[in-house]
């Protein structure tokens, strides 16, 4: 996009057209006492670029960044290696556009990318169709709950205790305005998931059961009985995946009967980025496609018989349906979707499987080693690349102390569930391909010292 600065003459011309003498005349409706005069207290007026760079650099150095330390943080945001080619390709001018293609016919390249993204996501999640795309995993999760309400015409969602608490929090915020009833309990430090309890809780008012896979403690359950029980009661199963790399190794939720599968796509192609922008994945069974939020890209033939791509099934969106839109969350996260798609393409099916195997192998090594530390118990029977340790003291203190020693030791359950002190000794450890055997040893030694 060209940047065209205004000259004083331009400004004068515009002002004279609207009959104003100065720019301040445009603000006469703002009460004088509300207008800023002079500088803002506490902020310097201006500084040179060099001085600002130095200042910001000094502030940044106060952070212990993910790349500088043994890093075991996960719980919904994962540090994976993203090939440099991904970053290079997404910055090409054809792709680095500012906005969603609402005039799609002129953006065939973008549409083709989205079409391929949808295909990859649908295959990964094991569903018939996937959209392109959602804002992030937590909002995609809420959209699935809303979609289940529209389909079942019921308003009670059962949320697994293994669902990421931030996702629960987003759903609670939204439910305030829609009237959905959400049933949720904090997890227990237990090797078994709450699948049986969820099955027992399904009733005739249940719109959906929302379960995370692997869950917040890293546990993995067969979702088939839950899908069957939900469907038998006229409810839907919504499965949430926060670590899509896992699906390179374990069965996709769609293949176990989940009606709607949503996820956070950050792991593939998108860096940690201090928490965003991320990328929501959303797929479902074909029969529910009309109630799906967002848009789909379709492949078609033009008048001359040539292959082309169009935005289709976007008729329920805000730019067409206005206040009657199915959802107003179609911020496409297009660039993140592109990054996902490029990374996924570079990996291929075989590469994804290898990456998943590598993650799992290192996680097993870490779990074995850490379980040997006195005062540490491994909670999980099974896991992918993330598992929970039960310590002999509050994990929040442990994480803080280890951070002071330059080790980012995991996410404490006390931090994730501040209202559930009973699980405060739980520490969720994520191990990806970026963790080395030396990192694992460093963490084990530091934990040993900390818990002695």
């Amino acid at each position, binding site marked *: 996009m060209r940047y065209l600065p205004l000259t004083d003459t331009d400004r004068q011309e515009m002002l004279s057209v609207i009959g104003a003498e100065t720019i301040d005349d445009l603000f006469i409706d703002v009460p004088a006492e509300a207008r800023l005069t002079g500088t803002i207290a506490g902020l310097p007026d201006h500084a040179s670029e060099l001085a600002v760079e130095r200042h910001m650099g000094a502030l940044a150095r106060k952070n212990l960044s993910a790349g500088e330390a043994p890093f075991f943080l996960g719980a919904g945001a994962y540090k994976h290696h993203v090939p440099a080619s991904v970053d290079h390709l997404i910055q090409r001018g054809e792709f680095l556009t500012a906005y969603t293609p609402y005039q799609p016919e002129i953006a065939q390249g973008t549409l083709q990318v989205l079409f391929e993204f949808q295909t990859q996501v649908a295959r990964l999640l094991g569903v018939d169709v996937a959209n392109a795309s959602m804002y992030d995993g937590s909002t995609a999760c809420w959209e699935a709950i809303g979609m289940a309400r529209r389909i079942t015409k019921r308003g009670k969602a059962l949320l697994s205790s293994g669902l990421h608490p931030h996702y629960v929090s987003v759903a609670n915020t939204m439910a305030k305005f829609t009237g959905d009833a959400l049933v949720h309990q904090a997890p227990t430090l237990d090797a078994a998931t709450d699948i049986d309890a969820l099955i027992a809780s399904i009733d005739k008012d249940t719109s959906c059961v929302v379960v995370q896979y692997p869950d917040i403690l890293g546990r993995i359950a067969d979702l088939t009985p839950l899908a069957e029980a939900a469907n038998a009661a006229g409810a839907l199963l919504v499965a949430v995946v926060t670590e899509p790399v896992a699906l390179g190794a374990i069965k996709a939720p769609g293949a176990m009967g989940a009606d709607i599968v949503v996820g956070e796509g950050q792991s593939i192609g998108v860096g940690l980025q201090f928490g965003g922008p991320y990328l929501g994945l959303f797929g479902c069974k074909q029969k529910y496609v009309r109630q799906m939020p967002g848009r789909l890209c379709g492949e078609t033939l033009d008048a001359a018989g040539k292959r082309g791509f169009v935005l289709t099934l976007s*008729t329920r969106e805000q730019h067409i349906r206005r206040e*009657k839109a199915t959802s107003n969350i179609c911020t496409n996260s297009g660039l993140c979707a592109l990054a996902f798609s490029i990374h996924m393409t570079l990996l291929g099916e075989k590469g994804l499987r290898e990456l998943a195997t590598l993650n799992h192998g290192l996680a097993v090594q870490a779990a074995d080693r850490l379980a040997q530390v006195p005062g540490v118990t491994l909670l999980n029977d099974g896991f992918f690349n993330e598992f929970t340790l039960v310590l002999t003291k509050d994990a929040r203190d442990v994480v803080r102390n280890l951070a002071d020693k330059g080790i980012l030791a995991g996410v404490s359950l006390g931090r994730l569930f501040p209202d559930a002190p009973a699980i405060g000794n739980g520490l969720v450890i994520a191990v990806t391909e970026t963790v080395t055997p030396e990192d694992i040893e460093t963490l084990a030694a530091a934990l040993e010292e900390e818990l002695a």
Partner: protein
Amino acid sequence: MSRYFTDEHEWIDVEGEIATVGITDYAQEQLGDIVFVELPAEGTTFEKGDDAAVVESVKAASDVYAPISGEVVEANGALEDEPALVNSDAEEDGWFFKLRIADTSELEGLMNEAAYKKFVASL
């Protein structure tokens, strides 16, 4: 049986206390290829002018309003599998739903076929 039309391009066939409602041939032609029709559930009651159904073409979704008040006694299930029926036979097999008429006096303000044709010609 008598047929009425609205200026929102719906047609209504009245037989006894039951009214069959659809969109006109003119309307389907304006919409283009129809890919989906969302129909009201049986037992739903509408006031005149309520949103009763949604008809979607590839790039637009339009509301179909209840032309008169009443209770839905049947929806045309055939449209769920074959929405293109609205294109091929809008004013017969492509009907949307049947209403039990609540107030026959509401029919009075509607157009007959000749008046509707004249109305369409003026658009």
